[in-house]
């Protein structure tokens, strides 16, 4: 299930790395070694890399919740910016909102791709704006779903990735998750492809 689709675009550290320091306190050393540091790979996609194609009606807003991810580090991650990546620029496609919602147990069914934004009240009750949100380590919250609201104004659009800028342990990172969503205006009510 875990189709890893993460690639680091850039990352920086606030301190210069130095040689490992010797210590006579084994317990301290063990503790530091066992923690998982924050890196550009800390956000791990759990999404299976399928491609989705959705014709949309007039004024219809698609809730794209296909991206499910977790924080594999031991540090809380603070999301600064989320940006869908479009093939061809995305002119004629409006991003209505970008939200994040926790999935706390295996029984929490991910939203997937729905035709309402928010997809339902249960999701709306627990979601928040993605930008500014804190993603807890997986030891605290199992996973999160990122839900992007798209409205097609004209044309056909291909979302090829989702960039997330985040900060963890006072270090800034940027990652890109691969994504494969095609949206277009529906030509007739029974269209299942663009």
């Amino acid at each position: 299930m875990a189709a890893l689709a993460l690639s680091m675009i850039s990352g920086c550290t606030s301190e210069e790395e130095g040689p490992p320091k010797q210590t006579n306190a084994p317990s301290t050393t063990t503790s530091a070694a066992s923690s998982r540091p924050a890196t550009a790979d800390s956000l791990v996609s759990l999404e299976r890399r399928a491609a989705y194609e959705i014709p949309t009606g007039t004024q219809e807003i698609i809730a794209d919740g296909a991206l499910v991810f977790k924080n594999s580090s031991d540090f809380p991650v603070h999301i600064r910016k989320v940006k869908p990546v479009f093939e061809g620029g995305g002119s004629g496609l409006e991003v209505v909102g970008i939200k994040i919602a926790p999935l706390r147990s295996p029984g929490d069914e991910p939203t997937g791709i729905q035709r309402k934004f928010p997809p339902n009240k249960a999701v709306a009750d627990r979601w928040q704006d993605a930008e500014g949100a804190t993603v807890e380590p997986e030891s605290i919250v199992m996973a999160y779903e990122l839900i992007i609201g798209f409205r097609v104004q004209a044309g056909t659009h291909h979302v090829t990735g989702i960039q997330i800028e985040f900060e963890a342990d006072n270090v800034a990172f940027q990652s890109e998750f691969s994504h494969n969503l095609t949206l277009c205006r529906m030509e007739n009510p029974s269209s299942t492809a663009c």
Partner: protein
Amino acid sequence: MLRRTSAAFLTTVTATTLASAIVPAGPAAASTPAPLACPVEETYDPTSISKGWFATAASSAWLAGPGSISYAETEGASFSGTFSVGWTFSASAVWASVSTEYNVSLTASTTYSKQWTYTKTVPDGKTARAVVHKRGAKYTFNKHRINTNCSTSSSYNGSGSHPYRANSLSEYCIALDTFPATDFQATTGGCTDH
């Protein structure tokens, strides 16, 4: 009632007689009957089976139609079986009894990795996902035990859900699963979009 009492009496007499034959004669041996000694034996009795297809973890996100889901990635489709039993049991012995009774060979888990390629269309009004399925069976069983004191006891209502040991490509299929999720599809329906 009278017959039961007589039978118990006869059993006791027989056991005492056997014990007398192997224990050295003496005051203690003569006054204390030796305990009954039967080898413990457990047998399993499969009571029902439903053959079919289990949904693996290899699935797309849910998509509210109309739209389509396509996939062309290499991924492992894994399925791990489960038991639901309130008493101690031997998994291998249970599977052996199911094999004898129903001519199927079960195992704890299977995985198969390949490039799964498909396109599934989701019609208007339906929410569905594409899922890789593995052939297997759901079954129920009881346990019968001969105890060391030669009494017998039975335990009922054990159940299991496990994949077939056979793990070739023909043991897998891809089907559309309409919301809410169906984790098992009986063979009578085949591995079909449902």
